[in-house]
């Protein structure tokens, strides 16, 4: 059983350089006409590998969010540190994640082994759970938290590349949506589980860590045991080199005389040249500009709390509300993005973000505007997070896909960090209401500009970079 054989996914398998906008009316080009209806029916289904990856993320998020939710309590109550010390931990977490993402993507592309790079990331995070069981003192805990975030940074881009490789390109948006829905469900369940445990066992920090370890082990186990070892670059090469001749094999089995270059179906090697592609640059630019206008949810919640005066302990419920909306809408909105164009959904989603800011700034206190703000925020995430990954994966050649996804996510994350820092200053300088209106107004200006940038086929793959499809 060679990797070469298993690397070719089934008929619903990977595709490279597919335009981001598909036309559902077209029969699938590479299938015999007689099977087109079956083929079309199959596009409606999400690959089982995507669902498995969703389950992996679900378990891992239960694990990490359960710990994240109780960590401040643990550091202050159990380790007897002050909350200032917790601030140190928090600051370390902010920086660690974003930067390793590109590296994780790059490693996945270079080795053409996204599963195993992702497994390293998931495994690293799982190991930190073991560490938490024995950690005493703040430096140890801080080190483990940073390691966990590094693990998350490593695994994200290869994992998304795996989703892209196992999804049907026609429902890429929906596939990412299904994955994000499961991921978000885990993020919502984790804290609830942790607080339920502390309720039953008041000093049950270790119990939470044990549960977290269990979930993390199952997540890694599901990845290692159930997810196929896809080789996206090799698969793309094999798909475009269908004849024995083009694969550099002898014309017939057993012939050895006229072998051209030997068997090296490695596909195009990794190259940073994708960063020079017009469409890629355009996407990164749009993601960066819109990211600069996306301030942290915490500010929206704080603004709602400031205005309505409810106690801060409802914060977790605001978070849960947003996540429930995100979870419910991720798959349907992803499907919508597959139909009407992912670029537009990504860009216009930011109008909803402006709407959420307006709800938080509007002088109408009460449950209605709060709920509206949460629904808008949740829908915004459904329209942007998975869609960005889907858009990026469809835009670049297979050989650089994980790196490109990691780059796009890092651009967004760094832009959002800058936005939150800047917004904090604006909040103090001009007040809560004005600050929110300013950002909402900036979004209302930026969105049409960005929509103009991605109009028509502007986010179609760069021909020069995706020649592998026509080879």
């Amino acid at each position, binding site marked *: 059983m060679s990797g070469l054989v298993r690397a070719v996914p089934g008929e619903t398998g990977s595709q490279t350089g597919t335009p981001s906008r598909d036309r559902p009316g077209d029969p699938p080009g590479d299938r015999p006409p007689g099977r087109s209806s079956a083929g079309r029916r199959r596009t409606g289904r999400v690959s089982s590998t995507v669902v498995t990856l969703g389950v992996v993320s679900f378990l891992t998020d239960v694990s990490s969010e359960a710990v994240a939710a109780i960590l401040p309590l643990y550091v202050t109550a159990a380790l007897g540190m*002050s*909350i200032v010390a917790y601030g140190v931990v928090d600051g370390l977490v902010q920086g660690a994640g974003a930067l390793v993402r590109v590296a994780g993507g790059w490693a996945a592309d270079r080795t053409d082994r996204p599963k195993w790079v992702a497994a390293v990331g998931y495994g690293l995070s799982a190991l930190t759970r073991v560490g938490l069981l024995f950690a005493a003192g703040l430096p140890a805990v801080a080190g483990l938290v940073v390691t966990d975030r590094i693990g998350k940074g490593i695994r994200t881009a290869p994992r998304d590349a795996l989703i892209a490789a196992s999804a049907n390109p026609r429902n890429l948006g929906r596939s990412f949506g299904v994955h994000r829905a499961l991921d978000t469900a885990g993020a919502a369940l984790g804290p609830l589980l942790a607080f339920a445990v502390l309720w039953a066992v008041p000093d049950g920090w270790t119990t939470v860590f044990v549960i977290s370890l269990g979930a993390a082990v199952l997540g890694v186990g599901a990845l290692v045991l159930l997810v196929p070892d896809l080789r996206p670059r090799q698969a793309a090469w094999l798909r475009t080199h269908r004849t024995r001749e083009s694969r550099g094999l002898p014309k017939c089995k057993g012939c050895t005389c006229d072998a051209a270059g030997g068997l090296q179906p490695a596909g195009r090697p990794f190259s940073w040249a994708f960063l020079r592609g017009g469409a890629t640059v355009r996407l990164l630019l749009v993601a960066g500009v819109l990211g600069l206008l996306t301030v942290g949810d915490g500010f929206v919640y704080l603004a709602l709390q400031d205005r309505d005066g409810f106690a801060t302990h409802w914060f977790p419920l605001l978070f849960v509300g947003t996540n429930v909306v995100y979870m419910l809408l991720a798959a349907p909105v992803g499907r919508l993005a597959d139909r009407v164009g992912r670029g537009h959904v990504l860009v216009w989603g930011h109008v909803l973000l402006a709407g959420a800011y307006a709800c938080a700034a509007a002088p109408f206190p009460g449950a209605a505007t709060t709920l509206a703000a949460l629904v808008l925020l949740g829908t915004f995430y459904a329209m942007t997070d998975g869609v960005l990954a889907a858009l990026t994966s469809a835009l670049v050649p297979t050989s650089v896909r994980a790196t490109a996804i990691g780059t796009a996510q890092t651009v967004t994350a760094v832009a959002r960090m800058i936005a939150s820092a800047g917004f904090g200053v604006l909040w103090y300088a001009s007040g809560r209401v004005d600050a929110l209106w300013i950002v909402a107004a900036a979004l209302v200006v930026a969105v049409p500009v960005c929509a103009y940038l991605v109009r028509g086929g502007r986010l179609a793959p760069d021909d020069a970079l995706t020649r592998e499809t026509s080879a």
Partner: protein
Amino acid sequence: MSGHAALRRRTAFAVLVLVVLVGTGWYVTAEIRRARAEQAAPTQVEVTEGVLDGPHVLFRGTAPGELYGRVAAVALDDLSGPRQVTPAVCDRVDSDGATTVCLRTHRGVVTTYEAQVLDAAWRTTASWPLPGLPSRTQQSPDGLVATTSFVTGHSYATTGFSTETTVHDADGAEVSGNLEDFTLLVDGKRVAPVDRNVWGVTFADERVFYATVQSQSLDRTWLVRGDLAERTLVTLLDGVECPSLSPDGTRLAFKHDARAPGAATPRWTPAVLDLATMAVTVLDAEERSVDDQITWLDDATLLYGMPRTDEPATTDVWALPADGAADPVVAIPQAWSPSVVRG
């Protein structure tokens, strides 16, 4: 072959799920049983009556068992002696004998925090919600209540570390709002660092108080004198946290971050500031890091809580001479948040 391998992998995963579920389930059940048993177990402390009638120290009891977290009192002349246990459950407590302020946590799937004002019969006469983990509380001589809580923690509130310190009337009415909104004057000039935080109020009278203002971006931790009428905070000295006024009103005990340069975590050493001369005496007879708002037992002795290294949930209240002339000793075992009621 491939089908075989897939089956083998699925079986392996099923076994893994079984092992993890059984293992975790067993551990969780055992822990819940242990917690139930511990909470129901009798607390091993000597209990008495009548302590509250005389001069005493009120505190949160931290001896494990059924009385864990209950407010208790020991006689001022017998700190390590038997304690009278009250019905109140508090994280932080401050009392003047008649009125007690109690900050507490209501654990649940959504954990909430509350400040309560209790009368002599431990009935709640006023209460208001706190935005986060209770940290400090102090009363003024005539019934103002300062509370500090941490507004972080929630990984959801991604705005970083923050405290909220407010002053209320004992009847629950707001007096100050968030002290961060007071005008901060450094050498007479108004500054407003975005990340300023205020905590650890100690009252001089009904209008003037001392507190800590920290800005991590400016790398300053100031002692400030606050004025509730003018709504100002005037900086006095850098490097002072959690001040506490001595009973005679001449000195402030505080914790001072004496970490080695470049160290990631703070090491707080107790210190005393003479308000007349502004001279600081660092009490390095205490070699451990103290994270508490220090209390004065009398004009010569400081009290503060320290967690036990081997039993983190249990703390002791330690005593240290205010001139640093002797080593710290345990004053009240299995106690936290002492409040001296001189009667």
